[in-house]
Structure formats: C-alpha cells, structure tokens
C-alpha cells in the first residue's frame, strides 16, 4: 500500500497543476461535470471571476457554509447567468481590472432557461467565456428532460411507454445557434479528452470578446451508468458521432476532432439505462428508433466531416494516447 513521507495536505499544496476547485465537494461518484469544471479552472488559472447558474455545479460546490471554490464565484439564478456575468465584466472594466469573467451553466440553464440572457451577453460583445456543462437533462432536480436531452432518451418527464420511446423531440443544436451570433470563438469538447478541453479554454481566455464552450459531461445518475464508466461513455458519444467535437470561428467551422474508428450508436446507447427501452425487445418501433439515432450520428459525421483520413494526429484515438511520464498532456 502506498505511503507518503510528507503530510498529504502538504503534498496537495505541491501539485504541479493549479486547480480552482478543491475536494470535499458533494458531486456524485464519477461526476462528469465536477471533472469538467476542474479541468476548466486548470486552464484558466486563478485570475478569473465566475458567475454560476443554478444547477448541480452550484449546489455541490457550495454546501452552505462551505465552498469548494478557490476563485471569486457568484451564484446567479437559472435565467440570468449571462446578465450577471455581463455586469461583473462591466464593473471590472470600470475599475480597470483585467480578470477574465467566466459564466458557467448546465444545459438547462443554457439551452432553455438562461438562453435569452446568454444571447444578450453574446450580442453585447462582453469579454466573457461562457461554459455550458452538457449532461443532457435537469439532473439537479431529479432528471427532467431539457432542450439538450437527446432524442429517445428516458427522463422523468419523457418516459418511454405505449405512445413514445423516450424523448419525442431532438437535441437542440445549441452550437449553431451560438455560432449564429458571429462570436469570435465557439467550440464543443468532451470530458473524455482533457487536453482538448484545456486547450480550448486557453484559446478562449486569450480572446477579447464573447466565447462559448459546450462540454459533454456524463451524469452517472441521470444516464444510468456506473460512475466508473463516465469517461468510457463520454468517449463513445464522440466516437459514434452523436456528440461532434468541433470549433467555430465567427460562425464558420474551423476545426473538428476526426473519428478514427467510428463506433455504432448501439455501443453508446447500450451502456446507459436511459436508453434501455431500446434494447428490451426488437419490435418495429425499436428498430426505427435505433435507425433514427444512427441516422442522426451519420448526419453529424457527414455535415462536419468527422471521418478521419488519418492525417490528423489528434483524432479521437490519437488525442487519447498515453505516454510514459505523462509527456502528452496539454
């Protein structure tokens, strides 16, 4: 068993990478969002101010009277994160201070409730990085469907039954909507690729103006998988084409993470309880739904050109490779 010769708290102080969130937070086991938020702060560094929409992240990092944050942080309402962040940014500007403002919200706070405030923030050209942690439902309140919930997923408000196979509607294409604001930089990322997240955050930090990053973050509780599988499932979402990892500059597609070995959508769906109704019996409805989901993935691969031609070293496989002594992390 491992033993250390110095107190563990001292060792924690000596870690070679800055982290803006410390342990003790109350996230569930294997939480994708807790990981994603920590990775964001690793790349942003301590000189930031955060406006955090209502949601899991806000709840589990600040169990009153404690806080897991090491950076200035403010809780905003569900609907006004973009507005609060805009206000902080304007106040800092008035004081001649240069700390970067980061707004954070879940998919509910971003796609649905806080959307108009976000749109306004982008339109007014504030110097803010908006991060959306996308776990595809209102998880904090007990798994209700959101505009981000994928088609056919089961939530408490989209139960499968005789009439429907889970969510009837499609996942909102938020990145295209954001990109239509012609902001300098908008991107998607996945917790399965930490270096990619950190690179994108660093890039956004250096841009003067509104930027947006959507991070796909599995929720073991809401998706119905073991916490130990969060990364494996996040990776499958990318490798199937269901969650394209892309970058847009001024609304135009600038870069994608190509998929080396495209996986069938069933590999991703089977691993999650929220899609279990698609595997109970193979009737016509099920076949159609599975074909539909496969078509959605194929469509993403086609429109974004996700099929790897093996020229990009950082495709879905290359970006995951490990090397001795960690000589590969960005």
């Amino acid at each position, binding site marked *: *068993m*491992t*033993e*250390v*010769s*110095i107190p*563990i708290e001292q*060792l*924690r102080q000596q*870690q*070679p990478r800055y*982290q803006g*969130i*410390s*342990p*003790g*937070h*109350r*996230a569930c*086991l*294997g*939480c*994708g969002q*807790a*990981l994603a938020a*920590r*990775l964001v702060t690793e790349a942003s560094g301590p000189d930031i101010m955060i406006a955090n929409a209502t949601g899991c992240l806000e709840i589990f*990092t*600040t*169990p*009153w*009277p*404690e*806080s*897991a*944050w*090491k*950076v200035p942080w403010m809780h905003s309402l569900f609907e006004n994160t973009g507005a609060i962040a805009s206000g902080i940014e304007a106040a800092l500007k008035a004081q001649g201070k240069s700390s970067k403002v980061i707004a954070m919200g879940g998919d509910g706070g971003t796609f649905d409730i806080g959307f108009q405030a976000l749109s306004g923030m982008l339109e007014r050209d504030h110097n803010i990085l908006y991060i959306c942690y996308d776990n595809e439902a209102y998880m904090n309140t007990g798994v209700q469907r959101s505009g981000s919930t994928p088609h056919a997923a089961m939530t408490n408000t989209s139960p499968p039954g005789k009439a429907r196979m889970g969510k009837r509607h499609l996942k909102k294409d938020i990145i295209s909507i954001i990109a239509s604001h012609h902001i300098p930089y908008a991107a998607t990322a996945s917790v399965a690729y*930490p270096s990619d997240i950190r690179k994108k955050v660093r890039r956004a930090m250096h841009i003067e103006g509104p930027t947006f990053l959507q991070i796909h973050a599995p929720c*073991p509780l809401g998706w119905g998988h*073991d*916490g*130990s*599988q*969060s*990364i*494996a499932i996040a*990776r499958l979402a990318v490798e199937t084409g269901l969650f394209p990892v892309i970058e847009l500059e001024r609304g135009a597609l600038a870069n994608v993470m190509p998929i080396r070995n495209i996986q069938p959508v069933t590999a991703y769906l089977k691993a999650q309880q929220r899609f279990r109704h698609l595997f109970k019996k193979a009737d016509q409805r099920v076949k159609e739904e599975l074909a539909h989901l496969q078509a959605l993935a194929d469509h993403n691969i086609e429109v974004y050109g996700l099929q790897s031609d093996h020229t990009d070293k950082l495709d879905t*496989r*290359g970006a*995951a*490779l*490990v*090397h*001795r*002594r*960690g000589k*590969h*992390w960005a």
Partner: protein
Amino acid sequence: MPILTRGAFAQADTAKMYKTGSWRIQKPYHQHFSAPCHNACLAGEDAQAWLAYFSEGHIQKAWETLVSVNPLPGVSGRVCHHPCETACNRGQYDEALAIHHIERYLGEQAIQHGWNYPLLSQTRHVEKIAIIGAGPAGLSAAYHLKQRGYKVDIFDNLPVAGGLLQIALPPYRLPRNALQAEIERILALGIDFQAQKQLGRDFSLEELHPQYAAIFLAIGRQNSREWQVDGVIPHHLQNGLDMLKEWIALGKLDIPDRLAVIGGGNTAIDLARILRRAGAKEVHLITHQAHPDSSENDMMNAIPREIIQAEEEGVQLHTQRGIQRLLLRGEQVIGVEMTRMQTMQHADGRSERVSFRGTETVLHVDQVVPAIGQQLDLKALEHLSTTVEGMPVTVHGQTDQPHIFAGGDMCLRSSGTVSGAIGDGYRAAIAIHHTLQNTPLPHPTQTTTITVEQLNLHYYESSPRLHTATLTVEERCKNDASAEVETGFNDEQAKKEATRCLSCGNCMACDNCWTFCPDSAILKTQENASNSSHYVFDYDYCKGCGLCKTECPCGFIIMQDEA
C-alpha cells in the same frame, strides 16, 4: 470560522472540511501484477521493468536492471527462443514486442561502452563455493554468488569458459566476440576459472567438500542417446552434436553429398544448417514432431525463427515422419524408409505416436546423423541419486545432499535452453546464499500475471513490431559461413520498439488517474511514493467511483470492498 449570514457568502476552499471519503464502499489501490514477459522468462528477468527504464532513456540503468538477474544479455538476446514474446500481451493487440532484440541491443551497448556490473551487495562472506561447469548455468551461478560476496572457483574440463555456448552454438547465431566479452566480464569480477579440470578425472566431489562450503553442479549432458532402427546401427555412425562441435572448432567437415538429420530440436536444426554451410548438396531433416506452422500439439522444439531460416537455406524438412527401416548396401547407408506419423491423444490424457501403414516412402541419402538428445554421464555422481535422464532437483536446484546444488541441462527439470540454464544458476545461487546464511529460502511465488483484458487498450497506439534485416541465403552459405544471420537494432529502432511496451501491471506515470479523478483525490508524487507508483490516493476525499481503475491503461489500480 467566521459566523456567516445565511445565503450570503462562504469562505473560499472550505468544502475540504467535509471528508467525502466517508461515502466510499469500494476503495482503489495500487496493485503490481507481473507482466506476462516476466513470468514467462526462464532466466527470471522482468523485461517490463528494464523496458520501462529503457523507454525513459536510461539505457545503462535498464542494462543494470537486466543484469541484476541475467549477466549474459548479449547471449540470451541472440539465442533465446524468447517465451517472453510469445506471452507478450501486445501480441493480442497487434504484434508482440521484439524484447530479444532490445535485450541484445543492451548487451551490445554495455560491451561498447565498457559498462561494469552494478554492485549488488557490499557484504563479504568467508565461505567459498565451487562451481563445476562453466556453461551458462555455471557462469550465472558464479556471477550471482560473487555479487553476493562469496569467493567462487569454477572448474571446467574445457580450456575456455562458456560450455556449450562456446563449442556447440554456431557462430552465425552467436558471434564469438560477443560471447567472449560477456564471459570475460563475469570472470573479471574476481572469479577463479580453473580450466581443463574434469570432475571424476582430476578431482571428486568428496575432495572438494572440505574446502568449499557448497558446490554447484552444472556439467551438462555428455553422452549421446543411443540410436538404432529395429536393432540396426549404421556403420561409422556419427553423432549430431559431435559433428556440430567439429564444424565449429575446425570450420569444415568431411561429409557426403546427401545427409539426413534425425531430430526436431535446436541441435538438429543447427546441424542441418551447418551441413549446408559445409557443402552438403541435400540436407534432409526427419522428425516425429510437427512443423510450427501446423496446428498440431506435438511441435518441433526448435526455435521457429531458426526453422524458417533453415528452410530458406535449403534444408528439406520431413515433419511427422518416422524412420521405419535403414536401406543398406553392405554396411553402407544408401537411404531410409519413412512413414507418416502422428501424435494421438487418448481419452485418458496419454499420448502416443502412431505410424500409418501404406505411407512408406524411400529417401536416398549417403549418411544418417541422429541428433536426438543427450544423456547424463553418471561417472563421478555415484553419491547422488540420479539417472541418465537427468538429476532430480528442486526449483532452487537442491539435490539430496544439503551442500550440493545442480542446474542447467543435467537436471531432469531442465528445459534444455540457455535462458533456463541462466535462470537455474540464478535460483541456485540464491538458494546457496540462504542455506549458508541459515535464512529461509524465498518462497518461489510468482505474482499473478496480468491479462490483456485488465489493460485499457484504448490508450495505446497500434504500431507494428520493428524488424531487422537478415543476411540473404547467399551471404549466409557462400561467403562467410560464420557471419551472424540476424542484424541487431540501431539506437533509433531500439528506442522506438521499447516505447511499444504496454507496461502491463505497472505504473507508467501517464497521469490518467490524476487527470480523470473528479474529486482531486489522487495526488501526483514522484519522490514520495514508496510503491513504485507515482501517485497516492487521498482516502479522505476518494468517493470510490472507480474511474481511475477503468482509465488506468496498465491495470495497476484495483478496487477493493471497504471493510
């Protein structure tokens, strides 16, 4: 802790007061498993361990780790049949690592740079040890005992040290300068080599005993197994091993045009290949055993690579064939009658070689040379219980006499390989040391081998095994018959190939666990961890989600139920 107004604010970084470790029902911990290359190695090497140093650029440290077990890497890197590579988990992913080539490269680097063996112990002991036989087993035992502080004398009936490596391994497989350099480096540790001293002729075991606290016997097998076909023994029958030795010593052989070698082991293959080099027009190799390409169980014992090279050189293989009759003109062999044979498994597990009537064929040859193995010469071993088929010993090389140990080809449990002999010497040296110091023998436990399923292969790039050039058949047989057939890796190739190691069962410090832990409950600590890992778990905060276990590429983390 200041008194806070409800809902107003919280002090930064205070959630740490709450220890989320109390949620945990399963706990991750680091578990070192043996890589399959380690457990498969007959010499006892942990290839994964020295490959780790190698791929980090610590070439000399890699060599030192290697020679702390096997002092003859330049030899074994060339002649071993490398079961490590057969076992390599990478073989189930793309292609097994070329471990033997990297071992050979390290051996060559050490000679080129004149590296000295690392000092393994400062202790000096008064006891003297006698080693009889300066083959790979004897040299290995001498090295390990000397390194543990004993005075060591080696006796051998040959004028030079090396045993079979010196007199029976063709130089095209093992160049003599490579062999000589490693032997000399061992003897230069201060080992007294007493040449041309034969057990039974110049001294007896009883005479040695008062002077020496322990004796390690590694005399090999001196007598050829008797060979006959239905009671008929050809006139002027020559033994395969003797012909091999003669060619190696003299560089030529007086042989007819067409010969048949009987046997399917390495000696038979070596002999067939030197017969081609010595000018034989037709060389046939007849064996009961099956070709390695077949799916039969009873396969030839020779190294597959050597079999392929023999075929390239024109040796004609007749596998699964038995000799039924010798065709004689007077007393002169003019051919053999062969039948097809197969090893059949009986329901009770017994196996039997069956020959099939009606499959007889005649092969015209001028000489038949058996190379079917050797037997133990029992002279001078009267006081030890043994038979001609080999001396029974324990895994530590213990015989029925407490001060006598044995290893190498002479033992019943011998694998008949060079690396097996090197390993025997190593294990016996450890046993002698513990016996003399009256300490308990280490239990021969092996750590559990890690399987490919325990690795996360997603994190490794698929890349083909690197191959080296071999001489063309013309260069091998026409020009210099002693020229080494296989070339070794250059610096770049060796480094590239070493990075293909999957680091099975051992931390490679890739940072995956540290990066992926959602609770920051893994801390990076290179200097402070005591278990070869580069990370520690902070169990105050670890919730036991198991993400680190799933995403560890090397299978170095396992989950255990909380008590």
